[in-house]
Structure formats: structure tokens, C-alpha cells
């Protein structure tokens, strides 16, 4: 840590390697916007970062109550980081409920920025607090920065024509300005954002910008803090052009790109569901890319309309979350039976049933692999982070069209709403996979197979190719067949076709030594935490390796060999052991150790590191 002088101020400027901030307030306080703005500014500034939005499912739970608390945590760093951080260095609490819900997570001795204007008797009552935590010793041991943000923002906007209520709503930008000052962030990215966001309401641009600048200046003038900090831009990320990316946006773009690489029109049938709706919304705004979107009457109609689009020769796509997957199950079977390409995106959330719609879980894995009637194999791919979602979505499209099969692409709430820098791909490097439709009726048979085991795709409108297909078992010409041997043969062919996809999936690389006592095996959004946990353990002098799966069904080839070089394989998952079950079924001769957590929150690095050390030292 170096200390330098801030130009034009007496307060010292300290350099830090990384900072974890959590913004917490009422769900009407704009904490997600505040967090996203801080993220965007830090990304453009050149930090590596990772985010964890954590908000209630209720749009506006009763104001000031504990269930209504919305949080946004981010870690930004001058180093290559993998997680949003376990414990925040700084907690910004906009009201008593936000304080008590989040205080336990704050690092010992951490900094608390508290909006004291929201700690009146009634506020304490709403948060079910018997005494004022500002006065009762609750905050002993923390560095408390009390700011009456409610009052300061009204003062800053005293000349504004806005109503008092509207002025009060600018308090998140005052807070943001304060934090920008503390961490020496530039304001221009947020000012530009305000200009676009409130294009039609210039008075809101003015007021929010005033609030932002007032907060920034307050840091300087009022000497609220003992100094300013700076987290320099990172030099550790690979060279190239970056942008900040969230998982759902990356999937929406990947779908457009994938369809183009296949030479198909993307047709989305979807039904709004948390946390997948933003993919529908994004794709609906990509109409100039030739994207057709249909917001259907339910989840079943959504997948069925997508299947119809594929039948017509377009790329059918449907996007949903777990409960929607349950409803789509029967139609998935139809796409499997008729061997039509289809991309099914499941942004997982905590279940079962409605579960916890805005919380993270990885508990739809077995549903994805096995959850259908009959022997109904489907390839399953999982994104790990916002920055691999684009590429994996394209791969889902490739598999769907090359193998004439529905493909399930899994993501989760953490990836969907989390953000990180994305090294922009060179699109010229992505190999196209144009679809060749069958157009010659001569010798064409509807379910004749190529060397991959896939059937040819013929579409209505082609003269002389008229065929009938359906969900009944069929023979090679698509005609209904109850012949026992035919059913065995068709079932085998469908099974073999999906198994053969493994030949096109690269064996994942082991991070660390390729043999040893322990391999940590993960999939999905745990990638950052597992990477960090393994690094932590290695810093403590222990040897541990790590492997992460993106293609889960079929499993990539080469795993058996990798696994056989380790005494034990730890499988941390945010479910009750679903990948462990799959692995034990497929490769029973290895020592898989499940490590499970289903709190609706990601693993902490420390939790996983402790488990690893426990096994290695055990």
C-alpha cells in the first residue's frame, strides 16, 4: 500500500489492490442501479471485477422492512479476480433493515456508510428493532461514517422544481457520488448514462447529476473519510478490448450470432419468468437483426411455437427458468422424437416449485439431463460466467442444428445478473456452421442418418418432399410404427446420436498438476469461487487441482483418465449433489466427495477452501 497526496486536497490517497463494496437499501432505493453504475464505471476505468446482485422477488416489499432489502455487492481489483468477494470491506446501508440484514457479512473492522436520516423511531420499528443500532453498541468495532443522506440530497436539490418525493429518490445518486469520491472514480460514465436513461425528462438528468456531484463533493469538503482510495487498473487481464457483460445479455447476443452462423432466422417463443425475462426483452429489441420474438400465452405455448418455427426451417428458441422447464417437458420430448433443432435456455433459480425466484441455485441439472418421459436424451451445456455465455450459446446452436436435437443451455441467477469484463471475441475466428436443407426428393428418407447419426432437415415449402412427422414412434420414413424392433432401433439411434456429440467437445483442461490427492470439480457459476478457493489453498502450500465442466451431457471424453490420477474428487455444487450422482452413475470407480450448499447464496471462497484443506489434511 502506498500513500500519495491527492491533488488539491489535504486528504491522503491510498492505493488498494482490491475492494469489496455492498450497497444495501430498500428495494425502492435504487440499489441495483447504484451497484450497476459503480460496476460500469469501474469496468471502464479498467479494473477487473465481479458482482453479486441480491434482491427480493417482490417488486416493492413493504418499505423499510427486512424482506424488502435489496443488495448489490461488487469486488473491483487491480488483479485478476474471480468472485464478488466473501466479506465486504464497505457496507453502504440506506436504512436500519439494510443494516441489520447485511451487517453479519461485513468484514471485521469494516467501514459502514450509514444514511442516518433513515434511522427515526418509525424506521427502527419497520425493521423490527427495539433499539437504535447507531447508539446501542451494535456497531462497535466498525468504522462508522454517518451521513444524513436524506437531508443532504434535499439541500443539494433545493433549487430544483421536483417534488420532495422525487428529490428524495435521487438519494442513491448522492450515495454513488460519495462512493465515487472515496474510490477516486470518474463521474462521466454515470453522467452519460443518466442522459440516455432520462432522455425524455431533462429535469431528472439535472437532479440526479446534481445529487451525484453533491455526494462526490461532500466526500471532499466534509472530510467524512480519513482519506481517498484508489484501485489502479488491472494489468493482469489479457490484452484486447473489453466491455462489461451480464450473463443474460451474453446469451441473447449468442443466440443472434449462433443463428447467423447457422444461416437461420432466430425465432423465440417465450413467456416472462424471473430471472430469464431479460433475454426475451433483449431479443425483442434486436428485431433489426432479423430476430422474431413471440411472447406466448404460457411456457408450453412458448416451446411449442419454437418447435413449430424449427419445423418451418427457422432456429426455434425458448428461454425460461426451472418452473417453466417443468411445463415444457412434454414438448421437449416431441422435439426429441421428431429430431428438430431447438435451443432451450434455463436460467436456474432456487427451487422446488416457485422456490426463491431471485436467488441462485444449480438444482435443475438432473431435470435437464433426465427429466422427461421415455428414454429422451438431450445434450446439456452450462455457462460458467457472463464472459463464457456468448461462446457457449453459440455452441448450443451448433449442436442443435448439426445433430437435429433440442439442446438445453443452463445458466443461473448469479450469471444472469452478475457482471464482469468480457474480452470481446474476434467474430471472424468463429467458424460458421451453415445448415444445408434437404431439397432433393430423390432417395430422401425423413429419418435416414448421416455419419454423425443425425437426420437431414427438410422443410415445408420444398416441392416433392412432403412428409408427416409426429410424436408417435416412427420408422425411417416418418410413418407411425409400433414394430418392436423398430422402436429398439430408433431408441438406440436417438441415444447414440446424443452420445456421439462428445466427439465434438474438447476435453476440459486441468488447472494445476494432472495428478494428486484432490481434484476440485465444478460446473456452472461456481467457477470463480472454486478458482479462488483453490488459489487460496495453494498459497497455504497445499497441492490441489481443479477442473470445470461446461458440457455436462454427454460428458466430454477423457474424464475417466483425468479422474484416475486423483485420489479423491471434490464436487461442490449449489444443490444436494446432482452432478455427483451423474458422475457416480457414469464413472463409478472414483472417489467423488459431494459438497453442497442451497442457501440461495453462492459459496464463500473460505467455505470451499476450508473443505479442501479439511480433505487434504484429513
Amino acid at each position, binding site marked *: 500500500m502506498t500513500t500519495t497526496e491527492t491533488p488539491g486536497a489535504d486528504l491522503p490517497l491510498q492505493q488498494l489492490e482490491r475492494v469489496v463494496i455492498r450497497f444495501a437499501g430498500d428495494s425502492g432505493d435504487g440499489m441495483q442501479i447504484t451497484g450497476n453504475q459503480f460496476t460500469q464505471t469501474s469496468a471502464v476505468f479498467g479494473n477487473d471485477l465481479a458482482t453479486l446482485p441480491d434482491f427480493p422477488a417482490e417488486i416493492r416489499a413493504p418499505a423499510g422492512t427486512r424482506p424488502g432489502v435489496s443488495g448489490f455487492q461488487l469486488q473491483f481489483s487491480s488483479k485478476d479476480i474471480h468472485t464478488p468477494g466473501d466479506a465486504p470491506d464497505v457496507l453502504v446501508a440506506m436504512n436500519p433493515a439494510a443494516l441489520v440484514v447485511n451487517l453479519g457479512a461485513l468484514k471485521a473492522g469494516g467501514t459502514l456508510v450509514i444514511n442516518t436520516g433513515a434511522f427515526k423511531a418509525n424506521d427502527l420499528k419497520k425493521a423490527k428493532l427495539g433499539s437504535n443500532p447507531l447508539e446501542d453498541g451494535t456497531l462497535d468495532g466498525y468504522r462508522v461514517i454517518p451521513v444524513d443522506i436524506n437531508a443532504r440530497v434535499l439541500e443539494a436539490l433545493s433549487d430544483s422544481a421536483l417534488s420532495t418525493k422525487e428529490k428524495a429518490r435521487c438519494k442513491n445518486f448522492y450515495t454513488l457520488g460519495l462512493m465515487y469520491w472515496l474510490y477516486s472514480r470518474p463521474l462521466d460514465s454515470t453522467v452519460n448514462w443518466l442522459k440516455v436513461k432520462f432522455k425524455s425528462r431533462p429535469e431528472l438528468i439535472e437532479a440526479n447529476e446534481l445529487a451525484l456531484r453533491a455526494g462526490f463533493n461532500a466526500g471532499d469538503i466534509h472530510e467524512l473519510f480519513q482519506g481517498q482510495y484508489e484501485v489502479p487498473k488491472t494489468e493482469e487481464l489479457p490484452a484486447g478490448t473489453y466491455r462489461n457483460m451480464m450473463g443474460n445479455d451474453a446469451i441473447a447476443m449468442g443466440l443472434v450470432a449462433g443463428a447467423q452462423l447457422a444461416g437461420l432466422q432466430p425465432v423465440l417463443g417465450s413467456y416472462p419468468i424471473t430471472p430469464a425475462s431479460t433475454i426475451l426483452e433483449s431479443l425483442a429489441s434486436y428485431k433489426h437483426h432479423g430476430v422474431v420474438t413471440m411472447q406466448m400465452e404460457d411456457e408450453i405455448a412458448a416451446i411449442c411455437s419454437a418447435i413449430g418455427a424449427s419445423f418451418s426451417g427457422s432456429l426455434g428458441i425458448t428461454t425460461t427458468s426451472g418452473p417453466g422447464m417443468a411445463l415444457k417437458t412434454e414438448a421437449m420430448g416431441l422435439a426429441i422424437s421428431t429430431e428438430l433443432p431447438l435451443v432451450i435456455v434455463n436460467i436456474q433459480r432456487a427451487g422446488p416449485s416457485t422456490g426463491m425466484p431471485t436467488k441462485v441455485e444449480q438444482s435443475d441439472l438432473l431435470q435437464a439431463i433426465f427429466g422427461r418421459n421415455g428414454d429422451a436424451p438431450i445434450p446439456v451445456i452450462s455457462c460458467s460466467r457472463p464472459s463464457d455465455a456468448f461462446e457457449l450459446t453459440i455452441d448450443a446452436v451448433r449442436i442443435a442444428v448439426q445433430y437435429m436435437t433440442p439442446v438445453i443451455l443452463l445458466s443461473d441467477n448469479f450469471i444472469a445478473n452478475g457482471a464482469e469484463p468480457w474480452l470481446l471475441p474476434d467474430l471472424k475466428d468463429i467458424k460458421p456452421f451453415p445448415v444445408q436443407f434437404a431439397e432433393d426428393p430423390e432417395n430422401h428418407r425423413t429419418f435416414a442418418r448421416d455419419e454423425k447419426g443425425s437426420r437431414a432437415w427438410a422443410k*415445408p415449402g420444398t416441392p416433392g418432399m412432403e412428409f408427416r412427422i409426429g410424436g408417435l414412434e416412427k420408422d425411417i420414413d416418418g410413418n407411425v410404427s409400433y414394430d418392436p424392433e423398430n422402436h429398439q432401433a430408433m431408441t438406440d439411434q436417438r441415444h447414440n446420436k446424443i452420445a456421439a456429440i462428445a466427439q465434438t467437445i474438447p476435453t476440459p483442461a486441468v488447472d494445476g498438476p494432472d495428478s494428486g490427492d484432490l481434484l476440485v470439480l465444478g460446473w456452472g457459476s461456481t467457477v470463480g469461487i472454486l478458482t479462488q478457493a483453490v488459489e487460496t489453498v495453494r498459497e497455504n502450500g497445499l497441492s490441489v487441482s481443479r477442473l470445470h465442466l461446461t458440457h455436462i451431457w454427454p460428458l466430454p471424453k477423457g474424464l475417466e483418465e483425468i479422474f484416475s490420477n486423483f485420489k479423491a474428487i471434490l464436487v461442490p455444487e449449489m444443490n444436494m449433489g446432482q452432478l455427483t450422482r451423474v458422475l457416480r452413475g457414469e464413472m463409478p470407480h472414483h472417489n467423488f466427495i459431494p459438497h453442497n450448499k442451497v442457501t440461495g447464496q453462492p459459496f464463500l471462497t473460505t467455505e470451499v477452501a476450508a473443505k479442501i484443506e479439511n480433505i487434504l489434511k484429513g
Partner: protein
Amino acid sequence: MSETATTKLTRKDFVSDQEVRWCPGCGDYAILASMQKYMADSGADPAKTVFVSGIGCSSRFPYYMNTYGFHTIHGRAPAIATGIKVANPDLSVWIVTGDGDALSIGGNHLAHILRRNVDVNILLFNNEIYGLTKGQYSPTSPVGTVRKSTPMGSVDRPFNPISFALGCNATFVARSIDTDAKHLTKVFAAADAHRGTSFVEILQNCVIFNKDFYSKVVDRSVRADMTVDLTPGEKIIYGAEEDKGMRFCANGLEKCSAADADLWDPATATESQAYAISQLDQDPETPKPIGVFRSVDAQVYEQQVHQQVEAAVADKGPGKVEDLVCAGDRWTID
């Protein structure tokens, strides 16, 4: 249609090579024959025609048509057909469904395709019974229907398919009879010509589980007196002697002499008139209306969907993936 464009197709050209497996005497045979003939006579292009069905006896229909066909899952044909038509608006799409498929398990999708006005034709074969599952009552069976699943009689009130469609703001609603090839063909032609969703209920005999349920209305001996054909542009006249008529009244239509009969125009009649007429058969003494209940113009779903895409392209220029990926604030690390 390339080579065949100059060669007139016959009914046989629309017959697939599959053996028809409905029960002997099933009303579906007559509907199939009428459709195959209509296709040939109307100059339909088999390559651009798709029959889509759900599950049930009627839903085997696509296998027997030498066109494109998709036998899908129970109740979902309207949703699948919506995707087919939106992805390729040049196709002529026909949905074949039954009273259970369309009005029980698929009621939601039927309601929504009618609301959206996708340009497809829906043929609902109504035999007021579940045939494929061996004779349970259906959502169009009358109250008191005694079957294996309702040994003491069904207690739930039936849907009237015509009233249902009208209630969903359908733009074309008609009814015909399986064995009346002439009438059926006339209704097929009107449905085919209509832009938007055409809904056609076809009264259809299930000889095994609900034999002749409709005989009081459609038997040759009573049909002229017990049905009244709503023909666009013609007076509403019925009866073996063509001496009876109907005229508008507060409740829709009422019986009158042929001389006093009103002219029928499904494009100008109000929705409430059409609805009231659809309810006439509640009275067993009043003839059951067949023919075209409603035929009005409205915006077609898939056309608007594509118009929006075209408008967006015209406004913003054809999108490039690079522009999507390389948007927003970016920074470079050397």
C-alpha cells in the same frame, strides 16, 4: 408448385400412402375425403400446405394427407401452428383438432390463437366424446352424460365451441357437418379465403362411443327442418319446403315465415348477434345454426410480427453481430 402448376391435381394427389385407421363408419372418413377433394379443386399446392394436429382420433388426419404434416402433442397444435406460420407465412396451415384436444387440454392455446388472429384454419371435429381413450365424456358432452368416468352422469356444463370462439374475438367462425360434403366444402372454401384465424366446428359422428349423438339434428329425415344454414349474402331460410325463415330480434334470431326472413351477412352482424345465434340450439325446438357465424377483417398476427422486423431494419439498418457485441462502453488493455 413447379411442374404441377400446369397439371391440375386430383383428389388422389392429396391421398398419402398411409392406411387410414379410423373405425369403420367414423365421420372422419367423410371429412378427410371432402378435404382431399377440396384441396385438389381449389388448386392447393401440397408443398406449401401443412396439416398440424394434437392428440386424439381426429389428430391422425395429417398422416393421411399427402401434404406436409405435424402430429404434435395433446392440445398444443395451435401453439405449434403459430410458430410454423410465423416462421414461414407463405405456408397454408390447417389445424385439425377435436373437442377434447381443443377445448379441454388445449383450451388456453385455442383462446390465444383466436385472439392473435394468426392466418391459419382450425377444424374442430366435435363428437362430444373422448374416442381415443375409449369413451369418457368431453367438454362438449351434455350434462348428465353417463360413461365409465361419469357413472352417475357428468355434472359440468359443456362448452359451445361456436360461442367459445366468438368469445375469443375470432374473426371467422363457422359450423358444418361431417357427412354433408357440399356444405363442408363451401365452409372450407370460406375458411380458406379468410385472412386470419378461421374456426370451423364440424359435427362429427363417433360410431363406437357416441353413435348418432347428433341424429336429431342432422338425420336426412330432419336435417332440413332442424338446421338453418347461415349463408353470407342470402336470406336465412330453412325447412324441407324452404318455407321457414328467421329474422333478427332482441335475442338474436327468431323463427318467422320465409317471406319475412332477414338477409345474413356475417361481416356486418354484431358480435352479440352472432353470439346470440350461437346459443339458439339451447332450445331443442329451434333449428341448429350451421354455416358462417362471423367473418370480419382484422390485423393478422404474423404479418404484424414481420412488419415490425422490417420496420426495425428500415429504421436502424440490418443489424450486424459486431455491432451488438462491440456496443456500450469499452476499454482496451494493451
